[in-house]
């Protein structure tokens, strides 16, 4: 990584929710940088503010104080066009075929339709859904629906993909498979990804960097690079280095 300005820069970000006069500190002193092309995992228990941070990055939430800057001279960032989102539920539109679901962001942005259609087919092939273009969401399994949701997040060629526990609703085996798929898609699509999860092994396995957040009070507890080589394989999960990383997180979360 160069020492030039990072793609994402957060400094001292603080967010407070107020409900009926009671203040709740959702994010405090969040400070980290993300280089272009990184896959950063935000991990922590519920209430640690990881989803709030993601929504701040998406421009969906305001914040009380601090700095959030996305984009650099080398990598200009247009907040309207350069964010792709994936949620815990696929949230495909039931009445649209898979191809048309993938096209939704392109339609909203008013991108040329013929070219987008071509790109959608290409992306469906990338996520392993060739042949499902004309199916309806209910005809696909949960894992396949989530693949389609990933293709939808990539259709407008955004620079930043924000994922909020995207595999949290899948069964354990599908989840592992989807982890490998995501790494492959990330390497082929060359995107910056910020990935929120409460899965500690998932965070270490996916992340080029892991940011650990703790709850009560919300706090950024750690931020470290994961020095496992790419492409990653499932047997790395049994390696000593992998164990060191997960132990480090368990320790921070007080779960030993």
């Amino acid at each position, binding site marked *: 990584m160069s020492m030039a300005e990072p793609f994402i820069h957060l400094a001292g970000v603080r967010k407070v929710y107020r409900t009926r006069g009671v203040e709740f500190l959702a994010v405090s002193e969040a400070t980290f940088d993300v280089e272009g092309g990184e896959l950063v995992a935000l991990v922590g228990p519920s209430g640690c503010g990881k989803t709030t941070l993601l*929504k701040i990055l*998406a*421009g*969906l939430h305001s914040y009380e104080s601090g700095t959030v800057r996305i984009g650099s001279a080398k990598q200009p960032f247009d*907040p*309207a*066009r350069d*964010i792709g*989102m994936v*949620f815990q*539920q*696929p*949230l495909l*539109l*039931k*009445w649209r075929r898979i191809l048309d679901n993938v096209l*939704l*962001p392109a*339609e*909203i*942005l008013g991108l040329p339709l013929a070219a987008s259609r071509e790109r959608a087919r290409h992306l469906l092939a990338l996520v392993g859904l060739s042949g499902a273009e004309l199916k*309806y*969401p*209910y*005809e*696909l*399994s*949960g*894992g*396949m*629906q989530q693949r389609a949701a990933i293709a939808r997040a990539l259709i*407008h060629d955004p620079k930043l993909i924000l994922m909020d526990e995207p595999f949290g*609703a*899948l*069964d354990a*085996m*599908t989840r592992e*498979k989807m982890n490998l798929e995501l790494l492959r898609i990330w390497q082929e699509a060359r995107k910056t990804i910020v990935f929120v999860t409460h899965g500690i092994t998932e965070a270490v396995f996916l992340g080029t960097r892991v940011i650990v957040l703790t709850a009560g009070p919300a706090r950024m507890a750690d931020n470290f690079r994961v020095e496992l080589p790419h492409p990653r394989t499932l047997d790395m999960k049994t390696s000593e280095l992998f164990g060191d990383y997960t132990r480090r997180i368990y320790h921070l979360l007080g779960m030993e």
Partner: protein
Amino acid sequence: MKPAGETTGMPPAAANRDALQRYSFAVIIHLLLVLAWYLFVKIGQVPKFVMPSPYETLHALLVPNYRWAENIAVTSVEIFGGYVLAVVIGIALALVFSWSRWLEMATMPLLVSLNMIPKVALGPLIIVWFKYGIGPNIMMAFAICFFPIVLTTARGLREVEPELLDLVRTLRGSRWQLFTKIQFPGALPYIFSGMKVAAILAVAGAIVGEFLGSDRGLGYLMLQVQVTLDTAAMFMAVILITLIGSVLYLLVLGLERLLVVRDARLQ
């Protein structure tokens, strides 16, 4: 959510066979009902004025005085007129609500209270205000089936996944795009569930209107033949009213199949 790898639904051939079985069973059960009716009347030697046989009921159609064609036409116009009016105005009103939070807050509680009025009780008032005839009966059908449509449509338009809102917002989508691409298509299953309930109510509304005051229509005819104890004609009138209602219901069902994907339909 379904676990990965699980195939959804039946193979098409099995699904077709299943549907065929279902339909033939439905037809057979209806024919059995007519047979039971016939046997009950014949074996029980039930007098004609209490319960006519299926044959006698059909025979009532041959009495020219009853002007079946005209009465069917009048009742159909009332049912379909009131229904279409309720669908158009009900959906339009719900759309207006969904655009203005303020208007919804002001009007929705009122609609809910008005919905509590037994619409049938308005019949005598409608006659006082508008005399009797096709027009007031259309209003009666309208009044009774308007509420389910406006209430379910308004509910459907409110039910948007918050995360889909987020998705549209990150793309700086317009209110109009949100409405046309997500909100309205998402509300269609709700709209149709309201329309199906309303289709049945519209029939009741028109007939009650005819009972209370009219000079034409199948409901009117029923009151006339009640005096002469022509029970067969009353049976025929009920069957015809049911058929008109069924036609309306099937039209709505067909439209729903055309516009709403199977998985999205509300049962």
